[in-house]
Structure formats: structure tokens, C-alpha cells
């Protein structure tokens, strides 16, 4: 008899998640498990609730008015399960462990260095020396260091779109999150910058479980290990890697829902 293979535990469990904004149903009964080392992609037309799904994981929907969330989202940190919506879960600390990159690059109007350093100093209470090291490592990880090392104290707003997005990624990586949420991170970038960032994600997914969102089937084909198709807030189809790689199959799924 074959020895039973140990099933790895997921990092993130979304169970029966529903979100409403001012009474309008935006997500309905969404379920998802995310395992270590994989990149799961949610794909769907705009307005299908992709961003809302990501924001449900770090409770960012609550930053908007009239939001009502039901269902369960649990995350495993240091071998302990945390219910994200439990009142006892410290919110700011949770958000530190769940890194999010937004659809549009959103550097703060500080210097390049301060953008990465500020959360380290404030949220992690790091001393200046540690911070400097961490910032450098994070900027190297997104291959931005060589481009900005001589102008660290220029405003982050002077960077190009692709550079800004990599800066935002570095800012998140510097916090050493347990999980990455990527919300159409290349939507506002040109072709070259997109490829650059996609290559980064290929390497990052070895180290972080990633939940990403896109509306671009090509990107999905290049990056995703698993795909869930969202439509009007509901998960209407799922694909595994072999299915994604089968051009016929994925085309059929896409055509059915787009």
C-alpha cells in the first residue's frame, strides 16, 4: 500500500464569503483555498467583484462606507489560524502580514526611500540601520535598486509608472508578508513594464502564496497555477494548470463568460 501523501494545509481559507455595499450584492458565496507556493488568479470582467474579493482578505472594504461582509476568511500565520473578521484579531497587524499591490501605483508623496522605510519604522518599529538594510534588500528584490540608488531621496512621484509599481511592490515585500494580494498590478503599465513585473511574480511565487486578479487572459495563461472565474460576484468556473495550458479549453471558458 502506498504511504499516504500528506496533504499540505492551505494558507488562506475563504468560505462562503458575501459582500454588500449599501445593500448591493457585490460578492456572493465565494469559496477559495490558497496553498503555499501557488499563485491563484481570479479573472473576470470589470465590475465582477475581483477587487472586492482581494480587499475582503485584508478587510480593506471597511475603509469604504456602507460595507457589509459575511462568511469566513481565515489565514494561517506561524501555524496558527486567525479568523480575519474576529473582533479580537488586531487589524493593523493583520494588514501588515497581508501585502497588497493595487491596480494603480500608489506611492505616498514622500521620497522613494521613505515610501519603503516609513511602514518599517512605524509599523514594525525598526531602528534606522535595520531599516536601511531592509529597504535596500526590498528594492533589489524588485530590481529597482540599481535604478534609484543615487536618487533615494527624490520624490517617489518622479518615477515612471512601472518603477512606481515596483516601488509599491518593494514597500510590501519589505514588510515580509505571509501572503500577497495583487490587484491587476499591471493594468496601468505599458508592455515592457508589464513583462518586467510579470517576471518578478514568477520568482516571487516560490516564496509567497499569491492571490492575484486580472482581466487579461494572456497574463492569466502566463502566471496562474489555478484560476477562478468571477462573474457578477459569483465564482462561475475554475481551471487547473493543465486546463489553463490547453488553449482550446481555456478559450471555451473565456468565451462563455466574457
Amino acid at each position: 500500500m502506498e504511504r499516504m501523501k500528506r496533504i499540505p494545509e492551505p494558507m488562506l481559507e475563504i468560505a462562503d464569503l458575501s459582500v454588500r455595499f449599501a445593500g448591493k450584492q457585490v460578492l456572493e458565496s465565494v469559496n477559495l483555498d490558497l496553498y503555499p507556493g501557488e499563485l491563484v488568479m481570479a479573472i473576470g470582467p470589470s465590475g465582477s467583484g475581483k477587487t472586492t474579493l482581494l480587499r475582503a482578505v485584508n478587510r480593506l472594504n471597511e475603509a469604504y462606507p456602507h460595507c457589509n461582509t459575511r462568511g469566513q476568511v481565515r489565514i494561517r500565520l506561524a501555524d496558527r489560524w486567525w479568523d480575519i473578521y474576529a473582533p479580537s484579531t488586531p487589524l493593523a497587524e493583520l494588514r501588515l502580514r497581508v501585502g497588497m499591490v493595487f491596480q494603480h501605483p500608489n506611492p505616498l508623496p514622500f521620497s522613494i526611500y521613505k515610501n519603503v522605510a516609513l511602514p518599517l519604522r512605524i509599523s514594525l518599529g525598526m531602528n534606522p540601520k535595520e531599516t536601511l538594510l531592509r529597504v535596500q534588500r526590498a528594492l533589489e528584490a524588485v530590481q529597482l535598486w540599481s535604478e534609484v540608488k543615487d536618487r533615494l531621496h527624490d520624490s517617489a512621484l518622479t518615477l515612471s509608472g512601472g518603477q512606481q509599481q515596483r516601488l509599491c511592490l518593494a514597500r510590501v515585500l519589505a514588510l515580509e508578508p505571509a501572503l500577497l494580494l495583487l490587484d491587476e498590478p499591471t493594468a496601468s503599465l505599458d508592455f515592457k513594464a508589464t513583462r518586467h513585473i510579470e517576471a518578478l511574480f514568477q520568482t516571487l511565487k516560490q516564496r509567497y502564496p499569491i492571490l492575484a486578479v486580472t482581466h487579461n487572459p494572456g497574463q492569466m495563461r502566463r502566471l496562474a497555477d489555478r484560476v477562478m472565474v468571477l462573474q457578477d460576484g459569483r465564482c462561475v468556473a475554475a481551471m487547473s494548470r493543465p486546463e489553463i495550458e490547453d488553449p482550446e479549453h481555456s478559450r471555451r471558458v473565456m468565451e462563455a463568460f466574457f
Partner: protein
Amino acid sequence: MDGAKLMPHLLRAAALACTAAAGGILLVLIYLVLPLFTSGGWGSVIAWQWLPFQGRFGILPMVVGTLLIALGALAVATPLAVGVACFVQVLAPGRIKGICLALVHYMTSIPTVIYGFVSIFLLVPLIRQWFDRGTGFSLATATIVLSLLILPTIVLVLQATLRELDRSARVTCAALGFSRPAYIRHVLLPLCRRGLLAAVVLGFGRAVGDTLISLMLAGNAPMVPASPLDATRTLTAHIALVVATDSQSTFYHSVFAAGLILFLVMVLIQLILRRLGGTFTP
């Protein structure tokens, strides 16, 4: 020419009239202080003693009084206003935010004479009792009440800046795990410096220009106060007192000089606000 063709010209005339009015007021004031320049009268006005019946018309004590009261009011109101603005923009729960903001707006409409009146019967006796010195009409009393008067100006200008910043930075910072107080300290406040400066400058203008509060509460002694509990007199109160008491016209030079100084302070403030850029009207 029919009515519709005439209209733009009428509008233009109105706009010109508004512009001319500002210039006209300045010209009249300058015309009135002109004798001071020709007769070398500035020396008698720029002096430390106001003893009009002995021919001493110095208004420097009033300049100092104005500065002390206005700066004192700023020192009290600015931290309070920063707290209120941050409270309203970031910390306040939904309903309280609305109430608080409406109240601050409402404060702008409370007549200054009411602040003065109420303070005479509420604050002045308290000050007299607590410190057991003087009449209670003092620099300190006027400063406290004046800070309440300029508070809404500062809060509203500051909050307008905070609102813009908050719109772009709130979600980003939440996602980075900033607690809301940390967000206030490390992101909002460092980024709103320009708006804060504009707010403070506007508040200073309000404080310097107010008449009734200092007139009713500061005691009006034309001297440099030695302690916060001493009485003092501001430029605005000086104008009111001298003109309203039907004094001899030889006193008027000092009053016109005071008016010109106030006007020039306002010009300076406008220039500073222009330099800061943007529009900062509460």
C-alpha cells in the same frame, strides 16, 4: 443695444467696481495718513506712550498688544484645531463626524459680539476668582476667547487640505498596516504642512482684525502688559475707542496710522497666501 448685449458690459462694470473699491479704500487711508509723512508726524505715532492730552500719540503699545493677543490666540487655537481637524477627518465615527463638522461650520456664524458678551459674564468672573488679581479684563481673557473665534477658520482650512490628502492616502496606508493614529502622525500631518501654514496665517488675520473681543475683554489700558492678567489694548480697539468717544481731531492721526497698519498687515497676509498657492478660503 438690447438688454442681452448690454449684460456683459454691466457685469464688467460690476467687476471693475469691486476691484476699484479695494483700491479706493487703500487710497483713502493713504490720503488720510499723508499728513503724517509731510509733517514728520510719524515720530509722534511710532512711540511708546499714549497720553493724548499731553500731546503724546504713541501707538506702539497697541501694536504690541495686538501681536500678543493674536499670537497667544494662535498658540491656543492651532493645536486644538489640528486635533479637531484630525478627529473629524480620521477618528470620528460616522455620525459624530457630521455633527462635529456642522458645529465647526456653525461656529463661523456666531457673532463676535456674542462671544464678548457671554465672556464678560462667564469667563471674566472666573478669571477674577481663580487668579484673585485684577478685574478679570485682561490679555489672557481676550486671548482665550479670541482663540475660540479663530478656531473654525483654522479647522476648516486645514480639514480641506486633509480631506484631499486622505482621499489618496487612506486606503494605501490602511493596507500597509498603519493604525489610524499612526497614519495621522506620520502621513497626514507631515503632508499637510502647507495647508496648516495657510490656515494659521488666515487665523492670524482673523485674530488681528477682530475688534469686539479685545474691545470688550482686554481691558483697553494703552500699555504693554507685564503679565497675562494685565489689561492691554489692540489697534482695532484703539480705533474704536478713539473714534467712538468723539475725541478731538488731533487724535485722529494715530487712528489713521493704526488703520493703515492693519490694512498693510492684511496685504502681507494675502501675499503670503498667494505664495503658498492654492485657494484657502474657509
